């Protein structure tokens, strides 16, 4: 017997399971009764030619399986088999596939197979955005024709950040600064097949806002998750003082990121002014964060949007007060638990984005709490060593649990021979599923454990030891 590793991605359709050509297929097989000990596995792939007149499918062996072993196909001689979406992508004309596993033991063969029918991604629709120019406060309308799907979501093209999601084909959004700003709508059907529809570029310029507590409560009074997410971006862009000149102002001097060089504006203000300014912004940020309401997770995209908001809120690590850190770390932790809950309903691509954003959030929180203790970040006026130390200890304690959950979430999708890495300004994480034997050989290490076992090799590189 066998089934899909991610159940929701294979849905029964009598003879054929529906499968998405936009993501990988991971299958595992198991014996109904006890398996004989001496056994070998081999997975074969067939594509089908349907004779509709006779209602008959002729299966033809896909003869390049060996050539693409460990490129498109992983775990071909094990119980778990993965085919990346490259197979479906390169053979788009083939709509029917069969994956067969053969067990060989004591001169006998036993086989089992699962038939798949490609679930075509949504097509025959369009989306547009209006107006084409505006400011950071302008409400833009995104209007799609009715694609008859589960959800529409809007992303920035270059940074792949979610802006909004909606079950209905028309929605309004506030956009980040960009000239031009490239956006696409992700159209997701009920079986998680995805089509990306690219919009014509728009121009969004900055409109000044006066940050105040009154403004915050006004902006966050709306109950819509999208609106709240967009408000968080609008406010944090202002607090982080991001502008498009590519220069980072003195207010964001903190532990510098792993990637891209930071140009620090010189002779902008004296040190005391700088300290005063970050304290002012830290206070504002705290009062803003206190007003953000609790939001439920209604879909995978909602998890993407909320985790992104947390990255934006914590991006400037020298402006996070203890209260801010407590609130935000709690939210990051809640979302990590939600991730576990939604895991069985997500594609690998969904997991990648959410794990990346949660990693960034935790990295920011831990940098912010440990930074002043290690004399690597400016100390805020509210500083009390004992309180900071206490908070740091409690957050550091959670670190292993968080890394465990995030690592496991990715590992679920990584079959023998597969690897995946995350590269962000805050943290680099690489994961690889490999046999212990080949890893030890490669690294010139030794271990007295079973060399045949399959392990996960993790490399983490960070700004900070605590993450």
């Amino acid at each position, binding site marked *: 017997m066998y089934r899909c590793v991610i159940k929701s991605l294979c849905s029964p359709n009598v003879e054929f399971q529906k499968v998405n050509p936009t993501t990988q297929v991971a299958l595992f097989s198991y014996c109904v009764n006890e398996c004989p000990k001496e056994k070998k596995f081999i997975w074969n792939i067939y594509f089908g030619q349907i004779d509709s007149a006779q209602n008959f499918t002729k299966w033809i062996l896909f003869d390049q399986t060996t050539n693409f072993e460990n490129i498109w196909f992983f775990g071909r001689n094990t119980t778990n088999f993965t085919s990346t979406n490259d197979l479906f992508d390169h053979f788009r004309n083939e709509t029917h596939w069969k994956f067969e596993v053969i067990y060989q033991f004591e001169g006998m063969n036993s086989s089992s197979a699962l038939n798949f029918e490609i679930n075509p991604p949504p097509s025959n629709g369009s989306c547009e955005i209006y107006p084409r120019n505006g400011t950071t406060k302008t409400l833009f309308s995104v209007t799609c024709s009715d694609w008859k799907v589960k959800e529409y979501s809007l992303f920035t093209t270059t940074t792949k950040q979610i802006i909004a999601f909606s079950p209905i084909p028309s929605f309004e959004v506030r956009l980040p600064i960009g000239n031009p700003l490239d956006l696409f709508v992700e159209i997701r059907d009920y079986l998680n097949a995805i089509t990306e529809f690219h919009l014509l570029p728009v121009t969004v310029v900055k409109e000044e806002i006066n940050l105040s507590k009154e403004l915050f409560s006004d902006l966050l009074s709306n109950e819509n998750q999208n609106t709240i997410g967009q408000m968080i971006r609008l406010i944090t862009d202002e607090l982080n003082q991001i502008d498009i000149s590519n220069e980072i102002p003195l207010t964001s001097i903190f532990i510098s990121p792993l990637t891209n060089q930071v140009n620090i504006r010189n002779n902008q203000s004296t040190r005391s002014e700088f300290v005063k300014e970050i304290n002012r912004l830290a206070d504002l940020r705290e009062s803003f964060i206190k007003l953000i309401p609790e939001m439920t997770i209604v879909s995978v995209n909602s998890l993407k949007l909320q985790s992104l908001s947390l990255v934006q809120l914590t991006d400037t690590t020298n402006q996070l007060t203890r209260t801010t850190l407590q609130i935000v770390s709690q939210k990051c932790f809640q979302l990590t638990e939600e991730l576990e809950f939604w895991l069985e309903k997500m594609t690998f691509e969904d997991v990648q984005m959410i794990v990346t954003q949660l990693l960034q959030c935790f990295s920011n929180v831990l940098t912010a709490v440990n930074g002043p203790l290690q004399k690597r970040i400016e100390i805020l006026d509210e500083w009390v060593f004992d309180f900071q130390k206490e908070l740091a200890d409690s957050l550091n304690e959670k670190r292993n649990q968080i890394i465990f959950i995030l690592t496991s979430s990715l590992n679920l999708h990584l079959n023998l021979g597969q690897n995946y890495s995350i590269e962000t300004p805050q943290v680099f994480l690489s994961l690889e599923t490999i046999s212990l034997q080949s*890893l030890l050989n490669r690294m010139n290490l030794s271990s007295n454990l079973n060399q045949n076992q399959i392990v996960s090799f993790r490399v983490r590189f960070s700004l900070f030891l605590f993450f």
Partner: protein
Amino acid sequence: MEPLAVYGRSLIESNTNLSRSLSISILDQNRNEIPFETNSNSIEFFIPRDPNLRIPPMILTNETFHSLNLTTDLPISIHFEIKANFSYRFVYKFDKQSTFTNSIEVNQSYFTFMLDNQQTVGHRLLIFGLEEANQEYEYRVYSSGCYYLNKENEWKGDGLRVGPKTNLSHSHCFSTHLT
């Protein structure tokens, strides 16, 4: 918890923002970490420095000798760069040694030399210089270190050696363990 980069205690100016950390784990199928050991050879790795480091220019001088206080709690390596248009003898000694016990004949215009963290350990003072130099030359000295955090959250340097490929953009480390 100790500061990672030693702040304001060393004569060699240390910028506290320059550190990075690397962690390597092998996890079994239950995602528990598996212990492993190195074979006869150490594990070699590079840790880049913060790209925002502003490298201080080399110092022009005609003084023969220079002294460095090695008053950090953690072992550091010391790296020398010297530009000179003449031949000289590079000499160094530790602490209160009366004579220069170590010397190197140099007749190249750009000379680099390092003392790794195991050579400097236990010493408080390093004096180095260019014997027979009575002309101007340029020099720059910087330090590096490779550390791990033990279970008590203390930075330690045992089992870690700073390697010869260390330069101004990265630290080269050898480790006999992955703690």
